[in-house]
């Protein structure tokens, strides 16, 4: 426990003492944060920010440290903008996480790892990461000082933006390594329809209806799920086009709603850049496209896919 001059700080006082945790006591448990957050709905039924704040207020230290809420919040701040008490909830969760790390708890998340035999120490991953998880360090290898990247496990949220950014593929994350995604880029063409690869950020589709809709597409549309649109490497789009696929659609979250802070910006920039490069190379038509899907855009994905297919058909004529 932290100590001040004459008394031990309680758990809630410790949380309040950390920048971001100040306003925890104003929470009146309305549940707005839970209804905004998609982690409970999509990944972890036990995830509940309201309950974590309650645990903090009731002094339930160990339960708070063990709660998945402490570890899984990716600071997207969807809840912050609608919290009626103006509590920066991810700040409170961050404060709890900091205390948990200090107390020796470890993240249960799948995080990225760096292959030191490949890493050149260029530092692009450090610039890319929204969570400041990677850092560079120096190490002596065969009598020479060399720079490498390493990732702080408790900071990494597993978005994969560094994996997409690494120029030599030294970083990988179990489940969504480059090979695993690339191996899905394959369409066996049975009809003369235009073929389309849809990379879908798992967080951009809030409602189950939209997710189910993606399963219902015929074989000429291939849907590939990714943890964040920022995970997309433009090379993947090129691989797809190279293998004879007609178009690539990348679906990310609306500006300001990215689950990993800024993956959608990064991806949008990359895809738009690729698009204009292809235009300069005088390749016919818009073959790659980035679309934003907001939390209130129920049913929008269907229109976007139909629109992309229609424009591919039109280009062909």
């Amino acid at each position, binding site marked *: 426990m932290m100590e001040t001059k004459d008394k031990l700080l309680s758990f809630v006082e410790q949380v309040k003492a950390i920048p971001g945790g100040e306003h925890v006591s104003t929470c009146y448990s309305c549940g707005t944060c*839970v209804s905004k957050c998609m982690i409970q709905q999509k990944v972890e039924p036990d995830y509940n920010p*309201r309950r974590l704040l309650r645990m903090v207020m009731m002094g339930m230290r160990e339960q708070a440290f063990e709660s998945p809420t402490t570890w899984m919040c990716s600071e997207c701040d969807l809840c912050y903008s609608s919290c009626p008490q103006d509590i920066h909830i991810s700040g409170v969760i961050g404060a709890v996480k900091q205390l948990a790390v200090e107390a020796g708890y470890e993240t249960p998340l799948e995080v990225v790892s760096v292959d030191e035999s490949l890493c050149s120490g260029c530092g692009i991953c450090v610039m890319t990461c929204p969570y400041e998880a990677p850092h560079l360090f120096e190490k002596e290898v065969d009598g020479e000082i060399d720079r490498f990247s390493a990732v702080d496990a408790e900071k990494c949220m597993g978005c994969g933006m560094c994996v997409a950014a690494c120029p030599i593929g030294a970083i990988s994350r179990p489940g969504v390594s480059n090979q695993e995604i690339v191996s899905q880029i394959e369409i066996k063409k049975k009809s003369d329809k235009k073929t389309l690869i849809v990379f879908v950020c798992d967080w951009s589709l*809030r409602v189950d209806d939209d997710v189910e809709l993606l399963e219902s597409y015929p074989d000429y549309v291939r849907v590939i799920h990714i943890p964040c649109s920022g995970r997309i490497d433009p090379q993947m789009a090129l691989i797809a086009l190279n293998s004879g696929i007609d178009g690539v659609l990348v679906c990310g979250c609306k500006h300001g709603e990215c689950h990993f802070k800024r993956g959608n910006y990064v991806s949008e920039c990359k895809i738009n850049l690729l698009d204009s490069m292809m235009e300069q190379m005088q390749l016919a038509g818009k073959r790659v496209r980035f679309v934003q899907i907001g939390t209130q855009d*129920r049913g929008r994905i269907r229109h976007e896919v139909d629109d992309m297919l229609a424009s591919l058909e039109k280009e062909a004529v």
Partner: protein
Amino acid sequence: MVDAARHPNIDVRTYTQVERVEGFVGNFKVQLREKARYVDADRCNGCGDCAKVCPIEVPNPFELNLAPRKAAYISMSQSVPLLYTIDQEACIHCYKCVEACGPLDAIDFSQEDRVVWEDIGAIITATGFNHFDPSVIPEFGYGRFPNVITAMEMERLNNSAGPTVGNLIRPSDHQNPKRVAIINCVGSRDKRFNPWCSNFCCMYAIKNAVLLKQMYPDIELSVYYIDIRTPSKGYEEFYERARQMGIKFIQGRPGLITEDEETHNLYVHSEDIALGRAVEHEYDMVMLNQAAVPQPDVDDVSSVLNVQQSPGGWFMEYHPKLRPVDSPTDGIFFAGACQGPKDIPASVASGSATAARAGRILHSDEWEIEPIIAEVWEDRCVSADGKKCGICARACPYGAIEVEVGKAATVTTAKCHGCGGCVAECPHNAITQLHYTDAQILAQIRALLADKPEEKVFAFRCHWCSYGGADLAGTSHFEYSANERGIRVMCSARMDTDFIYEAYRLGAGAVLYSGCHPQDCHYITGQIVGATRAKRLTKIFDKMGMSPGRFRVEWISAAEGEKYSRVINEMQQVIDNLGKDKLMDEIETLRPQMEKRARRMYEVPDVTNASDYADRMSAVMTVEAGNDGN
């Protein structure tokens, strides 16, 4: 309302704006602008023939723009007095109404606004409240999703005199909704918009739900809430009745509403706190129970009446518990929700209370006030010499002081409540307060510090709070240092810098500057005047090199006897820790500076002369109505 209009002693003026209010209790002069209706009030019999022939239709704000009205209109069918008005902004001057009016000849396009002055004894403000506009909350989609409606729109759709004759329909397809959600606390209890609880919306939501359930027994109803508040008689029982009728109450404030673009059905995303998980339910229609907010022109009204506003813009009452319908200005009262969100029973009660309070004024020839008013020495006021000053007027919480360059400042006695802020603030010592003159207070300070001043903890206490705190410390037998000496003034605003300097000049060991907590000040903003001065003093003493703790500023309520005794004991500790030698050294070093800064004490040489000084200010115990001020 009809009875009021018929009453011989009640004069109902509608379509009339209060533009200026001058004078004081019992003697207000009020400027009214009677706006031109373009209809002669004496001739119009309210038949409505003009509206029937009028070809112009504009949105009707009374129906929340769900239905049109004509350019010749009454605001609602029960309007009192029943007089039509021609909306000049919409009128195309076809004069069909003139024709329709026929021999009655009530329509007069040459009418102009009329400005009249009236003598008024007391003013009751009953300007009510407004509804929060939920379109600024993006997650609820009001304004984008047609089937998300507000409580007031529901009220009109559900009203047998409303645009649908009481048939509740969805705006998107005009079908009766089968599943309706009601969302509470839209814009209230929300720090982004309005932090307050709007008081009546819980009951309002339950009422609407019960009403809909009675009209459409098959309807599915859910009420989303943060807390259900049913504090008055019979309210909790009504809530239980609603639950028994099968209305679902879901604890959890929705964070998001999404819409199916084809059916225009709505999906409400919320947490069901009782289940502990996020849920998504589909509805045909969603009603947003908006916050009550002050009227949009509340600032104009408060500046016309010269009354203050509480945080958020509601009119501020004299005292939240003991004088809830009085404004701090005598003779002005607040009825109903203009003072804060109120339900119907509370509004009726406050309306009756204001009538009784106003009746007291109208039935008395004389009006008693406290005799501790402020008076200006005209020969000293620099404003009389043509200089710009006005510090006294800025310090006055009641607007009782008028300053005009070229004339000495004047205090309207009937408006003065005697906080003494102007007296202490005046840099030229041109104002005095009866019964709390500088001479009287300085005499007290000198008497109390006559013997061994360096041992004393000298306390300035305000009458309403910290004096009460000291009193409570005594009656509760909380022990505190016997070296404490204190005097009472009406407000911390009266605690002149010179009094503090004088106490130190005389060699006081420590000085406490105490008053009410900011929100509790008896004189509205007197504490702020005092606190600003105390802050300045703290800085000055710091610069002088005074030991920390010898000057202390504390806000102590009448209930904080324990705090008072603790503060005094801590200050005694400061003196003890310094040690007598060091303290005496410090007092001697600082004495010349104190002497230099204090200006007033030379005017009051000693105690014997003080009584002459006080005699000059012989009290005016009652102010005869009409003989004072203007």
